[in-house]
């Protein structure tokens, strides 16, 4: 039965939860398909994650391999294909707890970077799992900065082979998933040398393990890189190459080819390849970043209406902790951010689909803008959501610290997203470079891409709000965000120019402004996120209370951003001290309003108990009973050798000998 404290929260919802779920899924039909996939996977005990918190690294890895193999079978039985509508829900239903994710990256890189002949040779083998692929780019000494990679591939015209080497320890491949134990092949990125000349980084298919007995191939040293904060189920690996010879045909050669005589030929435009890399940054947002935040909000908010602590009114029952303003102030902005980023993700997906169509028509005009948006939003969303999950964790007090709450593993998993696919600071600086360029162009009257036209229309007004209610007007706060973004970009551009004019070298000037540049890039993304949320709300149907509650969340998202960064808005007097007090008042009022719908708002995310895998966040709110029963299954409650070995001698007067 449902805990009455949680049941009562659901009775007062101001909107239809089912309709909101459908909105998040992109339609009721999508909801139906998703639920069918989730149901099929969760009813299969092979995919259970119940024991995952008790397992060692070895057990987690083995389970992930077992699940990956079983998944092939199930997909076949269910008639799910990689192009079918079900496919995108499988990963979510498994909560990512499955091996061979890099196998897909391996296949994609061959499809994108390989010649037709290479695709015809390798893709069928990979599809049938005759081989297991990985993708080896990052090295011990080099990550985001690809030109710095040190692995070498020297072309030997005599044998028509490339000779691959790891010339020093920092050049060892390090981190690639599935490579530590599983992969038989990997795409290795190496500096290409022909006749002593370096041609830069190129991709090569290298076999690393025997297809017969899985032993390492000659010249290969490979293994697992050891325990990490999370991803125990993935065998991130290292790879050392010593005079490993591969045939000339193994260099992926859609764009660059080495002829038998050693002639290097470049062909076609790499821009489409570049676009593919950019797309990956956007494609990870939904499953790897938004889902964990939504789960964390679900767990923390449900728990906060079940947990009672201390008294708000003398003589009454202890209060639900969600009734404390400080608890609302921790959790509800995270909830608003989850919705804001969901909608910006929709916006980015649409933009990228459009970009893809343009690029197929050989129109590359949108590329710089898409690149800037994907870099900036990848950084801003991963950072914001990671912080949000940690806030949820700490808002659950002691019990949040138990692995059985589900929150520690959500946190340790999401935080990796701040680093992979481009370190966040570096990505923000790429966005900033685009902003500065566009600002200069706009100032000179040249046309700029749509997302930055606002940089040209600098207005020197003041915030017109006269009462706290004015700050519930999207025009008012959107304009405030715009003002800050313009101010930060223009002042940094001016500072850069000053430095250069005073004789500082261009690259030094850039480094001296990077702290400001990062702030400008964040302000730009924040502005677009607020604007997009407001525009999305405008377009929602007014029925079923959806638009009203989304408007509240939009207001909260915007005002929380101002409240937690008042300096940026007060600077140069755009917002006055008195107006800032209005922002605070409106913001705090909103917390109390959204509080009433908090549980329905997380119910709408529609996570099953199995997918939350949390003693605190289950739908029925039977928190304490579940925590107690689950803890008893812990391996530490089986007989431990520690008593016989250490405790017994200790307790039996070892000390009296002293």
């Amino acid at each position, binding site marked *: 039965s449902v805990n009455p404290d949680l049941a009562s929260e659901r009775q007062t919802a101001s909107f239809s939860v089912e309709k909101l779920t459908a909105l998040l899924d992109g339609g009721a039909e999508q909801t139906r398909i998703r639920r069918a996939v989730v149901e099929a996977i969760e009813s299969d005990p092979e995919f259970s994650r119940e024991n995952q918190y*008790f397992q060692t*690294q070895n057990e987690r*890895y083995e389970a992930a*391999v*077992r699940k990956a*193999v079983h998944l092939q079978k199930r997909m076949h039985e269910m008639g799910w294909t990689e192009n079918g509508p079900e496919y995108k829900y499988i990963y979510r239903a498994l909560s990512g707890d499955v091996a061979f994710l890099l196998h897909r990256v391996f296949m994609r890189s061959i499809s994108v970077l390989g010649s037709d002949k290479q695709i015809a040779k390798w893709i069928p083998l990979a599809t049938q799992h*005759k081989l297991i692929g990985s993708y080896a780019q990052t090295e*011990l*000494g080099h*990550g985001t900065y690809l030109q710095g990679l040190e692995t070498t591939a020297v072309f030997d015209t005599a044998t028509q082979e490339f000779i691959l080497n790891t010339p020093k*320890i920092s050049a060892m491949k390090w981190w690639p998933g599935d490579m530590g*134990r*599983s992969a038989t092949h990997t795409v290795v990125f190496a500096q290409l040398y022909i006749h002593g000349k370096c041609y830069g980084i190129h991709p090569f298919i290298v076999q690393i393990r025997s297809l017969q*007995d*899985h032993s390492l191939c000659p010249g290969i040293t490979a293994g*697992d890189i*050891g*325990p*990490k904060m999370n991803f125990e189920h993935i065998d991130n690996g*290292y790879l050392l190459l010593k005079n490993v010879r591969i045939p000339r045909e193994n260099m992926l050669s859609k764009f660059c080819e080495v002829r038998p005589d050693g002639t290097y030929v470049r062909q076609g435009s790499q821009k489409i390849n570049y676009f593919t890399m950019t797309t990956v940054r956007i494609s990870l947002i939904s499953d790897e970043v938004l889902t964990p935040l939504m789960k964390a909000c679900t767990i923390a908010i449900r728990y906060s209406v079940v947990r009672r*602590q201390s008294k*708000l009114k003398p003589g009454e029952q*202890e209060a639900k902790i969600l*009734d404390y*303003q*400080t608890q609302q*102030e921790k959790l509800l902005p995270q909830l608003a951010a989850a919705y804001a980023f969901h909608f910006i993700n929709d916006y980015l997906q649409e933009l990228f689909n459009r970009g893809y169509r343009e690029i197929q028509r050989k129109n590359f005009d949108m590329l710089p803008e898409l690149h800037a948006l994907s870099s900036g939003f990848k950084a801003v969303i991963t950072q914001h959501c990671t912080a949000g999950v940690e806030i949820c964790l*700490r808002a659950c007090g*002691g019990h949040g610290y138990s692995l059985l709450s589900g929150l*520690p593993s959500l946190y340790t998993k999401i935080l*990796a997203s*701040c*680093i992979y696919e481009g370190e966040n*600071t570096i990505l923000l600086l790429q966005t900033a470079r685009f902003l500065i360029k566009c600002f200069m162009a706009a100032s000179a009257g040249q046309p700029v891409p749509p997302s930055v036209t606002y940089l040209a229309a600098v207005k020197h007004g003041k915030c017109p709000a006269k009462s706290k209610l004015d700050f519930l007007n999207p025009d008012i706060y959107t304009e405030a965000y715009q003002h800050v973004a313009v101010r930060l970009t223009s002042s940094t551009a001016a500072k850069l120019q000053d430095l250069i004019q005073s004789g500082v070298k261009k*690259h*030094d000037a850039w480094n001296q402004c*990077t702290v*400001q540049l*990062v702030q400008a890039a964040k302000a730009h993304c924040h502005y677009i996120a607020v604007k997009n949320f407001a525009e999305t709300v405008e377009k929602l149907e007014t029925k079923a209370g959806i638009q009203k509650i989304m408007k509240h969340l939009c207001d909260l998202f915007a005002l929380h951003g101002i409240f937690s960064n*008042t300096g*940026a808005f*007060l600077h*140069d007097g755009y917002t006055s*001290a008195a107006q800032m007090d209005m922002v605070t008042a409106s913001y705090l009022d909103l917390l109390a309003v959204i509080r009433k719908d908090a549980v329905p708002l997380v119910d709408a995310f529609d996570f099953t108990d199995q997918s939350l895998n949390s003693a605190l966040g289950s739908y029925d709110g039977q928190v*304490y*009973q579940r925590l107690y029963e689950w*803890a*008893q299954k*812990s391996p*530490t*409650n089986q007989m*431990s050798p*520690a008593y016989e070995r*250490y*405790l017994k001698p*200790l*307790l039996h007067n*070892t*000390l*009296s000998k002293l």
Partner: protein
Amino acid sequence: AAAMSVNADLRRERAAATFQPELLTHILDGGPERTRRRKEIEALVLNDPDFQHEDLNFLSRSQRYEQAIRKSSLMVMKLREYGIADPEEIYWFKSFVHRGRPEPLDLHLGMFLPTLLTQATPEQQDRFFMPAWNLEIIGTYAQTEMGHGTHLRGLETTATYDPSTQEFILNSPTVTSIKWWPGGLGKTSNHAIVLAQLYTQGQCKGLHAFIVPIRQLGTHEPLPGITVGDIGPKFGYDEMDNGYLKMDNFRIPRENMLMKYAQVEPDGTYVKPVSDKLTYGTMVFIRSLIVGDSARSLSRACTIAIRYSAVRHQSELKPGEPEPQILDYQTQQYKLFPLLATAYAFHFVGAYIKDTYHRINGDISKGDLSELPELHALTAGLKAFTSWTANAGIEECRMACGGHGYSRCSGIPDIYVTFTPSCTYEGENTVMMLQTARFLMKSYTQVTSGQQVSGMVSYLNDLSRQRIQPQHVAARTVTVRINDPTSLVEAYKSRAARLVESAAKNLQAELSHRKSKEDAWNRTSVDLVRASEAHCHYVVVKLFTAKLAEVGDAAVRAVLTDLCLLYALFGISRNAGDFLQAGILTSAQITQVNQHVKELLAVIRPNAVALVDSFDFHDVHLGSVLGRYDGNVYENMFEWAKKSPLNKTQVHESFHKHLKPMQAKL
């Protein structure tokens, strides 16, 4: 691996320092003699083969518990063998043995024994203390319940007195009343001090402490009526068997209630305790430890991140030149140096609280407790302020190490998971901030009613004066000198005053149109937390600044002054809105502050490695491949990885179990 020389980058960094790191180490330790003694104890532990073991990162939780309990028992014996009895020296010994991690006897040594000393009658001490001292009895302290943490009055466990048998009957009446979390309870302890609601003669007399045997001496099996076990895996604290305890009509003799203060007579008559002000002292002491721990944990993370940033080269700053050390990037300095400054600031705050506590403790014996309420209120806030900041700071350090920071070989994940519960235990941080706020509101009310307040809140006295001279605040803006720490202390003072006043006024406004005082308090609590934070921030800047004058060596004073300025200015930059809104600084001044922060980054850069060397963490204690003193990071990452459990066999068993059959079928 063969002995390796120090990485050339780190050698260069150390040669370029403008001060002697040992001198700064002495200041952190409290004098050269303390440093010498600390290193002596460190050597005692690190050279002892009994305390060696495999890297804990490769062990399962059960194995880690086993190692910890093995080391703990040896530790207790060796402490006595060496005659180490000073609390601080015991603390050092323990943290070298366990490398900064918790251990299963923590609660026995830190709570069970001290509670016996302070709350047991002489007769009870005779029965329990020596057996506990000799570890025949291992005890824990069972307060927190599954449904109740910081709010003690809500605890549900009952102890009902039965005069016919002269026993207390202990019960866990609900699931929420099960004792949950106490360290050492799960597997280690055979006794627990249990906090329960006392019922006698049909009346509830509130919370009292009882000594409860939970496991059979000899077999270690749970006693009838006792259900006890481990609460399962956690984020960190793998070494600790945090436990649960459920009691069903479990009877203990009347003499097992700790009766130094309150008593239950054989017929069930309840005798009330005298004043409980003394318990303030213990809380202040424990919070001072957490402040110190915030400083140490952040220092460890900074040591790792800064040394690694000097070793790691990436990308290019100048076209055509070799890849620079990542510590040369402004964004990297901006992440790390303010945290380095914060670590130093918190060291000095921790030392201040400890000294003040010892001073007041001297006064307590003379009966002067007048300073205790303020110190109690202040330490609540500082505990929260420093642990929140350090918690976030450790994560920033980890992020600043990129992908390798995510590997457990970096050591930072472990520092984080070990440290983060201090935001919750010994008083949840938000609740702590609100305790400080209560004191601030009380002080504010005193000032407005014409009384003077003293101590750290004395700046509130100025508020009434400012109201008479409205131009006063405006006049203040031009007087802030951003190069002068003393002047910045004044700016922080004004900010705190403004936020305290604003919270007080909002609270007043809520009170004027709401019936319930608690409701009004709740609706102001976000403001109140902000006010407390501003107050704590002011105290930290003030204490750091005051420390500078005590430093004799000019070179060390110069580098600490840079750090102090960075700490203060970075705080202004991050909270610019508060200073702008209150009119303490103008937009132009904020721009100058931002600029000066960046200039200070460049000033501190040459001393960065020497400043973390001064923390003087031994490599074994640091537990980090990235933060090694010799900087030979990559070679040792490879050595470390080879020991990973997944690498035990050349071909993993899952190949035969799963992969091969699948490939055969396709």
